[in-house]
């Protein structure tokens, strides 16, 4: 990771930017995240529960944070901006969500409680979408 940042320093023109986007691991001592899940009904978001992430995801975010801190300490870049924003994923159906969990978001599973709650909410709102909200971190580093 640090090596990739060093390589990016080489290919950047003077005062060029590195932008790093990765999931925000969140505050506190919790070592795995739980992503909030909603049903989008019109302009309303109805809470449905949370989707737990495996702990190894968290370790990857921590490693990314440490790589950024390390490259800043090394003095190759200065920090220009750091922000957290919510990234939203919209699933057309419960089936689409389950397929994504199986093929892309590996290691994440819908718990029985969340599954039941989503089924109940969708039964009366068949056109509604499922929304997962993930906090994302943006770091902007400028080449010295």
């Amino acid at each position: 990771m640090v090596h990739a940042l060093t390589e990016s320093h080489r290919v950047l023109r003077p005062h060029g930017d590195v932008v790093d986007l990765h999931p925000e691991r969140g505050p506190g001592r919790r070592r795995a995240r739980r992503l909030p899940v909603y049903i989008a009904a019109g302009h309303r978001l109805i809470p449905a529960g949370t989707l737990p992430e495996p702990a190894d995801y968290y370790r990857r975010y921590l490693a990314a944070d440490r790589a950024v801190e390390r490259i800043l300490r090394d003095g190759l870049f200065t920090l220009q901006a750091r922000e957290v924003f919510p990234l939203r994923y919209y699933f057309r159906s419960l089936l689409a969500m389950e397929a994504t969990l199986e093929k892309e978001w590996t290691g994440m599973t819908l718990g029985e409680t969340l599954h039941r709650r989503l089924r109940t909410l969708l039964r009366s709102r068949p056109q509604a979408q499922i929304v997962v909200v993930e906090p994302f971190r943006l770091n902007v580093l400028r080449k010295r």
Partner: protein
Amino acid sequence: MRGLRTDPERLEVRMLVGRASLRGARVLEIGCGDGRLTRRIAGTARAVVGVDPDGERIARAKRLTPARHRGRIQFEVGSGEDLRFPNRSFDLVLFSWSL
């Protein structure tokens, strides 16, 4: 992924445009995957090169690139730790979930 839309509000791109010098820049995106974000920033940047170690994702990224962007987007299989580009050849390097 069918049935999934990621960030249809385009908040990610708005954050990028608002916080970094993306407009008119020559951009290298490391870990571009299937090019979702690459295609979204292509209208703002001058040119974008997307790099990813997964050949299947790069092939999909090329297939999904609309004709109007083909002159300004380029995709290559490669690693962020061993870039084949010359020194000082980009204005901005983007790590999209690839650190």
